[in-house]
């Protein structure tokens, strides 16, 4: 189980720290890779740019994707993932501050597996992270590898 990596795409260092804290507090000890903008996330996933040497077979078990990102935003990242055969089946959980309907709608229509709004209340945030970890890392059977 510990080899199941989490890719956290988050540009806000506070949210990053809080997310990591929430994971730790919930005893989710899987390795977490952090991408601080959309370009970095895509480089990592497609093993390009700074991640050119990465093993493409080792894809994260779940991607926690913020929507509002510098350079390439979260929805665009999602679109490119779903457009590529290598990443098409990766579970993507949108984790965002926005509760705008259009974000929700486009997120799901682009193939997000889940949409979680980050609550202001940290207690609730912890609960949300706990459930994400529980479901996507423990209950969910990932798609078979090629």
């Amino acid at each position, binding site marked *: 189980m510990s080899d199941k990596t989490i890719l956290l795409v988050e540009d*806000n260092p*506070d*949210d990053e720290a*809080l997310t990591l*804290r929430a994971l730790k507090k919930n005893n989710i000890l899987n390795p977490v890779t952090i991408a601080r903008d959309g370009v970095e996330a895509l480089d990592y996933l497609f093993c390009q740019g700074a991640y050119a040497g990465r093993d493409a077979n080792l894809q994260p078990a779940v991607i926690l994707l913020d*929507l*509002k990102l510098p350079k390439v935003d979260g929805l665009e990242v999602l679109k490119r993932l779903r457009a590529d055969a290598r990443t098409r089946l990766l579970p993507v959980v949108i984790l*965002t*501050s*926005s*509760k*705008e309907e259009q974000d929700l709608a486009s997120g799901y229509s682009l193939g997000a597996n889940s949409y979680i709004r*980050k*609550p*202001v*209340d*940290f*207690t609730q*945030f912890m609960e949300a992270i706990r459930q994400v970890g529980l479901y996507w890392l423990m209950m969910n059977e990932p798609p078979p590898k090629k």
Partner: protein
Amino acid sequence: MHRGFNDQLSKWTARLPFSSLRARLLLLLFLALLPAYGFILYSVFEARQQAAEHARENALWLTRLMASEQKSLIEVIRQQLQSLAQLSIVHRPEQAALCSRTFASLRAQNSFYANLGVINSDGTLRCSALPFAGRVNLSDRDFFRETLRTRAFAVGGYQIDRVTGKGSANLAYPVLDAANTPQAAVFIALDLGALADRLIETTSLPEGSTLTILDNHGTILARQPDPEQWVGQSLPDAPLIQTIRSNGDEGNAEETGIDGVERLYVFKLFYSTAAKQIYISAGIPTAAVFADAKRLLARALLLISLVTAAAAAVIWVGSNALLLQPAATLMRAARRLGQGDLSARTVLAHTSDELGQIAHSFDGMASALQARESEAARAKEEIRQLNADLEHKVTERTAELAAANQELEAFSYSVSHDLRAPLRAIDGFSQAVIEDYADKLGDQGKNHLNRVRAATQHMGHLIDDLIKLARVARAEMKREAVDLSALAGNVLADLQASEPARKVEWRVEPGLVATGDANLLRVVLDNLLGNAWKFTGKLARARIEFGVLQQTSPGMDEVDRVGNRRSETSGPTYFVRDNGVGFDMTYAGKLFSAFQRLHNVSEFPGTGIGLATVRRIIHRHGGRVWAEGAAGKGATFYFSL
């Protein structure tokens, strides 16, 4: 009636070729002159009547005169015969030759004595002014027998003489001997033709007149002129004879004479016996009688025809200058105006007569039309300009509005996303400090940090509600039938689920369906029922009710509260009622403004945006929302859509 006549006249003139003004004027002229024609004809008729009357009287007087002359003549002859009867040459037969000679000389002196002589008592002619041969017996003659029988003067034999073939009358007187016995008769035969000749000479009958002596059998005894042709003829069927027979002694008639000439005949009886009546008749040619009247008529007709022709000529020429040309000018102008040339004018002098006034009115009308037309064109141009400006402005404003909307969208997005991130950090790290440094903080420190967390969470709610309010304002409205009862039931069920421990007695009136946006109405009920739930939170027996006002059911509304509730709302009024803490009506006006709260946050949490959101949604539906309540006695929120 007058109108009817006019209509008739115009219909009539329209049918006949009298449609032009000139023709109508001429028609009027003839109509005006008709009485004159009538008067002339009447005058002529009158004159003719008078002429006829005059001629009749004249002729009658003449015939009377002639008749009386005839009678006087007979009297004269009687006296002459009486004298002759005393003569010895009459008494003595042996002096017959002398008698004949004497009588012949007597006859020569009197042109109308056809003969005179003596007849023996046996009827043989003894002596005669006209020579005779052998024995002539006159014993069968009426005058002879009469005079012998009566021994007195006798008249007879108005007849055609056997000897002369002429119309004659015989007058006889007895020749008496000493014993007073008639032994012979002396007689004079009158030549009626000569008599008539003399009569006609002494009177002044017009040319072509006739004088006829005839008996009641139609035998013509004498006639002037042309005695040879007519005397001795018997014409019992001639019209004049018929008239005489049916009229008696005296009369007149307009007849066609035996010679085919139309005459006015006057007749008078002057000798009558049981067997026959002798008439004298004068005939004056009708042509002569009426010649004057005819001449008068011809002259008058000529005169009035000349007058008519002259007047017609004047009208013909005058109407052209006075009527037809101005009318044609008016017509041309009207036609030009009709074809849309508004600059058309009559250019006639605006005199005070009818044509001038028509021209004046027409020009005025054309000017007014032209002015109005140009005014309309200007107004149209103005409207077009205004429309163009408006279009331009609308485009501009729409673009501005779209830009503003986009900005607002970006702003809300930014608010919902960016404002929450720091709050989350404050809350999260405060929690982290509480967890990680609990031992160093002490109770006071933990309390403070918990207050920081509560404040951030409240701000998080504020942001959410503000976003909701903004979204309500710009969300697209979809109008459909919404089951408010079902919606309210769902909201209350959700509230109950969120606080399962609470015991709330709630009632929803079934079957309330309204037209509106389902999502927005859900927000309304969320807020109103949520408030009711919240403000009854401290009660052991909370009661929440959703329904519709009975007064606003259509029938009741008409009867009870006409003009009151109606003027405020047009549809039904719904309400949400609770028995919670209520509010002071003094502050009712503040209820629906954003961020206005009537209760402490510590007592009842909330952002003060919910009712503002409700009001905005209700307003967007064109409805009204208001509240009634009292502190500690619950609140009722009403709304219409």
